[in-house]
């Protein structure tokens, strides 16, 4: 039998004004197991905790019920107070008589009646509580960063600088990500690769950073501090150790017709290729779908020309298994597909392009060598129309409900760069709103309008109609002048919405990290824990969490790194003791519980049991305490009730039900 103390908090007048706290304390004394009850103005105060301490010592209490605010508020406070007085912290239960009672009821009698019932339920539960002890799990002092864009690069560098080894897994043959595709960056207009390339080099050279390019995460198991990750290193067909990066193979490769991913399909590349000149590592891969050798068995030119003998057609995918303490997701974004926006004629005209395509066209290393020209006829455009919010801020299923955040700024950048380089080219921007919150952002936009003469029209484009003469007829609205505009343009640039990399779904599932309806990874708390996933040990860096520009991405990457470092700095983690356990005398070993466990925490063992004198070997479910997060899915799946959850046991919950219905 427990010896329970009940403490009723007034919370100043927050509770005491609507609940007769004296009455609750008095009624508590009638409950089974209760040996002590008192009320106090602020139980959470030093003095209040002292009362608890004293009562535990003097009355030899084995359990506590605190009738106060929500357990989400002060459960930890009271558990710590109990622990200081020598009581197991899990012998404390909270009756929430503030948020769930005094604050929502006006009638004192009614509120008191309810408070008494809530107190009874808590007492009934504590009567069945058992002391629980958190387990410990070790921390592997190594971090994994998924994605090698600027977010992943920055996170990896920061973690490595703190002294912890980091692995980066990048799906494509080179790190660099979207930023490497950009020409200039706003609002300073400095060259993107000029600021990115040194960072890529730094990552490559860092002794604590190991890069797996052309690789993907295959599976993730384990838990915070102790993840086991399988990484698939796709067959590169080139020996990384031998290759000198001379580039001869690419030059000689006869298969040159594959659209270049890096140039968004605006140019072609060879079958053996590095995505771009500054690629890290500077080791090509063979695209086996395009390679003549792989398709026909003949050719082998690259192998012949390679003096280092680095070409290896027999390479196969390799699975590397590594252990990590923390995982940072930095999977970035892509542009949405525009096949649902037929009115903008993207698929009909080569001269309707996305901004990322424009980015490549403007780039000196791009398909046109940095000359602004129409892809249809190579002529210089004289009239360019930018259309904003293509697929952003949509409430239908064609686009995304959110604002992509970066388009307003990069459009201003593009407009300005064009006007600067080609002063006789007119630039018109159709916009809904221009959003420029950020340091020096609005100034930047105003410069485009005021100094560079970019024509901003408030209104959306309804339709782009390709004309027989190759021009594009843009039909838009000017909402300020209240007129419809028909404008002939040579080129139309669409600010397509950005969306999380489609692979993130698969990765989130492996990590059991939650994602929102737009496939952005969910943060543990929108304001207070913005770089952590609700799943412990998983951190978020960059656009995978939500649209961001480069400075924001870099700062979030740093924040994610700090959180990861904070975790890696610990030697051991305490685990939640409210975990599931199976009663080995009752377990059938039927595996149903493992089917519903989201954490893979349940395994089966053949175990010798002594069931009231019957000795036999049985298949029995075993829960890994460190993996179990205590959701209880298994406990309901288990028909016999062999599986139960500590801290929320069947009998505890039933006792609460009974107390409430009494």
């Amino acid at each position, binding site marked *: 039998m427990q010896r329970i103390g009940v403490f009723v908090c007034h919370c100043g007048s927050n509770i005491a004004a609507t609940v007769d706290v004296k009455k609750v304390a008095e009624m508590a004394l009638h409950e089974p197991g209760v040996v002590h009850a008192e009320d106090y103005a602020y139980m959470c105060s030093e003095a209040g905790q002292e009362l608890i301490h004293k009562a535990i010592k003097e009355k030899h209490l084995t359990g506590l019920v605190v009738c106060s605010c929500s357990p989400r508020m002060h459960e930890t406070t009271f558990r710590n107070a109990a622990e200081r007085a020598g009581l197991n912290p899990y012998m404390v239960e909270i009756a929430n008589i503030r948020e769930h009672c005094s604050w929502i009821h006006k009638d004192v009698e009614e509120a008191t009646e309810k408070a008494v019932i809530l107190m009874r339920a808590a007492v009934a539960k504590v009567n069945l509580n058992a002391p629980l002890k958190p387990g410990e799990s070790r921390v592997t002092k190594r971090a994994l960063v998924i994605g090698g864009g600027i977010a992943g690069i920055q996170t990896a560098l920061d973690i490595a600088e703190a002294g912890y080894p980091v692995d980066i897994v990048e799906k494509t043959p080179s790190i660099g990500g979207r930023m490497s595709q950009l020409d200039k960056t706003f609002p300073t207009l400095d060259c993107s690769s000029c600021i990115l390339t040194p960072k890529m080099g730094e990552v490559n050279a860092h002794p604590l950073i190991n890069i797996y390019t052309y690789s993907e995460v295959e599976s993730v198991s384990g838990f915070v501090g102790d993840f086991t990750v399988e990484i698939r290193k796709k067959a590169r067909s080139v020996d990384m150790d031998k290759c000198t990066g001379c580039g001869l193979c690419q030059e000689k490769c006869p298969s040159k017709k594959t659209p270049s991913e890096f140039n968004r399909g605006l140019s072609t590349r060879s079958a053996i290729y590095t995505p771009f000149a500054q690629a890290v590592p500077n080791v090509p891969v063979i695209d086996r779908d395009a390679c003549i050798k792989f398709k026909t068995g003949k050719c082998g030119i690259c192998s012949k020309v390679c003096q280092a003998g680095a070409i290896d057609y027999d390479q196969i995918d390799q699975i590397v298994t590594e252990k990590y303490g923390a995982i940072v997701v930095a999977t970035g974004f892509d542009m949405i597909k525009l096949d649902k926006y037929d009115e903008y004629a993207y698929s009909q005209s080569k001269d309707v392009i996305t901004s990322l395509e424009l980015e490549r066209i403007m780039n000196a290393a791009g398909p046109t060598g940095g000359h602004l020209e129409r892809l249809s006829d190579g002529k210089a455009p004289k009239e360019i129309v930018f259309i904003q919010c293509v697929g952003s801020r949509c409430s239908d299923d064609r686009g995304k409900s959110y604002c992509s955040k970066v388009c307003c700024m990069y459009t201003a950048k593009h407009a300005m760069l064009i006007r600067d380089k080609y002063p006789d080219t007119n630039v018109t921007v159709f916009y809904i709103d221009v959003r420029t919150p950020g340091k020096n952002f609005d100034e930047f936009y105003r410069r485009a309008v005021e100094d560079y003469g970019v024509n901003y029209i408030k209104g959306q484009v309804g339709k782009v109609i390709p004309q027989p003469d190759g021009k594009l007829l843009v039909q838009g609205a000017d909402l300020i002048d209240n007129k419809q505009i028909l404008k002939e343009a040579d080129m139309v640039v669409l600010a397509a919405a950005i969306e999380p990399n489609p692979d993130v779904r698969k990765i989130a599932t492996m990590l059991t990290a939650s994602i929102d309806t737009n496939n952005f990874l969910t943060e543990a708390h929108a304001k207070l824990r913005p770089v952590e996933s609700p799943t412990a040990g998983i951190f978020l860096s960059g656009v995978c969490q939500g649209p961001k520009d480069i400075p924001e991405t870099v700062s979030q990457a740093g924040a994610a790194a700090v959180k990861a470092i904070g975790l890696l700095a610990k030697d051991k983690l305490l685990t939640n003791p409210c975990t599931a356990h199976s*009663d080995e*005398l*009752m*377990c*059938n*070993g*039927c*595996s*149903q519980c493992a*089917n*519903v466990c989201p954490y893979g925490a349940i395994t*089966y063992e053949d175990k010798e049991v002594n*069931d009231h004198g019957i000795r*036999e070997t049985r*298949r029995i479910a075993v829960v890994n305490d460190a993996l179990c997060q205590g959701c209880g899915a298994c406990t309901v*799946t288990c*028909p*016999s*009730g*062999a599986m*139960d959850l500590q801290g929320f046991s*069947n*009998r505890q919950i*039933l006792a609460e039900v009974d107390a409430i219905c009494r």
Partner: protein
Amino acid sequence: MQELINRAKELLADGTVARVLGWKAGDLPYNPEPAYFEKEEDFADFVYNGFCGANLSKYMIEASKLEGKTLVCLKPCDTYSFQELMKEHRVDREKAYIIGVGCKGKLDIEKIKAMGIKGIKSISGAEIEDEAETLTINTIYGEKTCSYADAMLERCHVCKGKDHMIFDEVIGESKETKDADRFAEVEKIEAMSPEEKFAFFQKELSKCIRCNACRNVCPACSCRKCVFDSNKFDSAQKANVDSFEEKMFHIIRAFHVAGRCTDCGECSRVCPQGIPLHLFNRKFIKDINELYGEYQAGADLEPRTPLTNYEFEDVEPGIVAERG
């Protein structure tokens, strides 16, 4: 039947199996019992006829613990149960040599008796080889006849089909017996008003004596210790003291096997009070089919059942009220 016996003896003799699990003739024409046969001479009593309704797959839980293989005779519907038990690691496939036996529908002595036939001395027409559509029943009150189909168990009228889901070999012919809609009875109840539904089940369940026959015969109810026998939920009960306990027991019994119940019909067959217990299980099956897609427990070895699986787009529980 002779072919079955010969084959069983052969497998026993060559050591493939250590024992045979089949049926032994009873002392009345209609009460054969599940039995093990280990020696050649035991087979004198071996029987397989229309009254061998028992689903032997559940006995394989115990048989799986024995040394050597057990030859088990499984009717088409029993093989679903066997696969479901395999899925749950309750039987060992390696310990079983499955002979799929043919089935022409199994008989229900209660149905024969309900026709007013009593004092039964012998029954002919129930043999598996018989082509007869009619049973001839010799009683101390004279000779009676009834059609085979009329004497069949309810489950055979809504048979899932005569294909064995798992077997090492099949012996004997089967004959299709399905002639009714599996969910017709459930639909009839669904169409009732809440008051009628309540009255119907109240009346049926009031007969329940909590003998646990339905549970203990059920291949899906294979818990070592049933929740109704343990103190895990303070739910141990040996009697229905209040009518609530009747409902509690039968709802939870059916819920615990929902998605795993193969609809083998043993619960209804064995109920001494003739409660149509399959109406509970079949309601769940019907709901699962309608809400989560057609599903037949035991038809495959996929580990996830409808209740240990989900889809993002699943219907909300509010559907129940909407269907009304």
